């Protein structure tokens, strides 16, 4: 029978000066050292895992549901890396007519398009004279379950 399995990767340190969160919390009686203490390799830092270029990474809030098929729901948190070169297929933050939008970048027949993954939004062909620039590349979406 298929069962969801959980693998424990390691322990996250509690350091209030860094915005880290524990992945799990051990139920240890206060005052007793854990017998596993000697076996911990290293601590895990979610920042280190999700953020490749800290100086270029920004958090952006998604609004609307037109990118649901890309896994982006209304209110989700996007981790956006401006250091990455935008490529065909990337989900990007694009500034279109003075507004930040989240779209998928597509190259087709030598032209670039911004497309929404939802229905009802025609692809937007990118031309030289448009008030448009790619602001950053979305690396991760954080979605509460």
């Amino acid at each position, binding site marked *: 029978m298929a069962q969801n399995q959980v693998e424990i990767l390691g322990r996250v340190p509690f350091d209030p*000066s860094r915005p880290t969160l524990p992945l799990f919390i051990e139920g240890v009686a206060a005052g007793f050292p854990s017998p596993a203490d000697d076996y911990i390799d290293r601590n895990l830092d979610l920042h280190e895992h999700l953020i490749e270029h800290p100086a270029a990474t920004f958090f952006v809030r998604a*609004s609307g549901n037109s*990118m649901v098929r890309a896994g982006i729901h209304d209110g989700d948190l996007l981790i956006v890396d401006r250091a990455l070169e935008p490529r065909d297929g990337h989900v990007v933050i694009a*500034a279109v007519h003075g507004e*930040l939008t989240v779209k998928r970048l597509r190259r087709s027949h030598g032209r670039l398009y911004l497309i929404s993954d939802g229905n009802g939004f025609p692809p937007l062909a990118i031309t030289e004279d448009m008030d448009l620039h790619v602001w950053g590349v979305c690396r991760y979406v954080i979605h509460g379950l």
Partner: protein
Amino acid sequence: MLALADCNSFYASCERVFDPRLRDRPVVVLSNNDGCVVTWSAEAKALGIAVGVPFFQIRDLVKRHGVIVRSSNYTLYGDLSARVMAVLGRFTPHLEVYSIDEAFLDLSGMQTDRLVDYGRTIRHTVLRWTGIPVSIGIGPTKTLAKVANHLAKNAPAAEGVWSLADPRDQTAMLSRLDVQDIWGIGARLAVRLERAGIMTALDLRDASPSHVRRLVGVVGQRTALELGGLPCIGLEEAPPPAKSIVRSRSFGRPVERREELEEAVATHATRAAEKLRLHRRVAGMLSVFVATSRFKEAPYANLATVPLDPPTDDTARLIHAALAALRPIFRPGFKYQKAGVMLVGLEPRAGLTESLFVQYDRDRSERLMAAVDSVNRRLGPDTLRYAAAGFAHPWHMRREHASPHYTTRWDELPTARSG
């Protein structure tokens, strides 16, 4: 060889990063309390708006030309500044952060003919990663790098990068630069030089060293040597630790009541204490100052200092000292415009010597402050605070045109629309 990287219209550029509507539009950023213009974009400068001009004087211009107005958002500027400096740090083993929007990079060992390309790469990378445009000036000394930066900003052919690495380029450029525009030559020294017939940077460079020294002293002579390509001002990677911490703000409206002044002073003491602990220092003295508007008929300003024995970083003790210092200088009947707290006699916390004559539970205070700081870092500033600092703060400064704290508050992140 050195490069000076200087952000273009830094505060206005920061506002543009998260609000693309501001692109190519005139933008002005106002001082604390929305009083004066502190910085502007090139488009606003072209409209004839000057830095330092009171905001009310340009209201018509703002309306007529659709100028975008922002209150200063130093939280945002500080965050973007740190990002710009981090990117610059990737391009050099030695970086001197000179101000919030300027840094010197050590480029020694690089081939002279590769420097402009390298500068372009730096400029391109900072713009991409952070959204902030920078100008890069390259030269063998700090003073020449500064001259080159001026050209990078203003010469149309520069496209943001200019090198004065080649001595042959230096002569022509220095002949066109007035002495008053040289970095390190203040207005006073410029007048003295001009009276002696030294009008341009080239004149200063080629004047006899003893003559320059008689005219403008060692500092001026150092500048002259730097213009000649001899490095006299080294890179300072770690600035000397601050000698004092000052927290002060102008009020959003005049303050007359003692209680409000006490709240303001206690708030400043709280902020100063936080900064003190961040730098792992303790203060040996605390001063409080208050001032009415200078433009009123009967201005009043005063300052009082109290010693802190033993030196401390404890918020409660600092508030207590601040209120004690305020008591003798508070005069009823004045409309106060500004109040502040200054901590001096700073020393490292580790080197603290115990005073034998004052009983003081240092360990308990340290643990309490660590807990307060940790809660406030996790749950937001002022989640835990001393009641003396008040709650409503009706005297708080005006920020009517403030942009969100895009990078430092979860509930103020930029929003991107899908669809």
